[in-house]
């Protein structure tokens, strides 16, 4: 749910309202930075640069998207810029982002979905998930983060990333199938033959 922040107060330079905005969105923006860049120092840079940008440009905000979507757009741009700086050879619009969803054909068919929560949310389970997300190409990862981690709609994700809804849907499906495949390969090894065979 979007917190109740007054745009008028922000534009008028109300510092308390800006502090409320910062507190409301620090966690998701820090998480975005952490997932995109993979280390706390870069995540902190994304966080600081995002809000410095907001502070600088809030008076130019035209309300074509929601304030939340605008914030995520700034944060995503900051993260992608930092990635380009760190890895200049990276082509973010590269071939891995395109192609059809169908080329991520599942090859793992073991049903681990009913494994107990304590196993799926254990330290090792969490690390496996983190690693799998980190392996996603950046252009798919940012879509997955906005849509599935932070809960933006397809339309909002498209607005934040300047992508069509069709493009968001294709990237999201590819990201989801990629992660599912990685987790399936991991949990397959941890299930007993009985658990695997009965599913």
């Amino acid at each position, binding site marked *: 749910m979007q917190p109740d922040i007054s745009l008028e107060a922000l534009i008028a330079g109300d510092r308390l309202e800006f502090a409320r905005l910062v507190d409301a969105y620090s*966690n998701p923006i820090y998480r975005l930075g952490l997932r995109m860049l993979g280390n706390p120092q870069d995540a902190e840079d994304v966080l600081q640069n995002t809000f410095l940008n907001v502070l600088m440009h809030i008076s130019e905000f035209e309300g074509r998207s929601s304030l939340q979507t605008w914030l995520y757009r700034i944060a995503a741009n900051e993260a992608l810029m930092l990635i380009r700086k760190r890895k200049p050879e990276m082509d973010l619009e590269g071939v891995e982002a395109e192609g059809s969803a169908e080329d991520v054909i599942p090859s793992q068919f073991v049903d*681990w979905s009913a494994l107990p929560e304590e196993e799926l949310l254990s330290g090792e389970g969490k690390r496996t998930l983190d690693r799998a997300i980190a392996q996603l190409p950046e252009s798919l990862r940012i879509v997955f983060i906005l849509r599935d981690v932070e809960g933006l709609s397809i339309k909002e994700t498209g607005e934040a990333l300047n992508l069509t809804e069709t493009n968001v849907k294709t990237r999201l499906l590819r990201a989801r199938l990629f992660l599912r495949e990685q987790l399936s390969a991991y949990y397959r090894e941890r299930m007993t033959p009985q658990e695997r065979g009965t599913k």
Partner: protein
Amino acid sequence: MTAHTHANCENLLSSLSEYIDGGLSPELCQEIEKHLTGCENCRVVLNTTKRTIDLVQQPENQAAVPEDVRERLFKRLNLDDYLKPSSR
């Protein structure tokens, strides 16, 4: 491992995300559910994809801003006066 390339399975795969997100028409949902009844592999792909999304959204997997990072952020933004302990 057998490749999962049956035509109906491919159709399901391309609609999987929208099916999970509830964005398909009732007619398409019905068609998918009919296919799922007879296709174990697709049921597994559906269950495990849903579970993958669900795991990502668990609070245990959601990092929060450390307090020292929050403090530096408030200072950088000249918001020191409003730096009350976070309620999170």
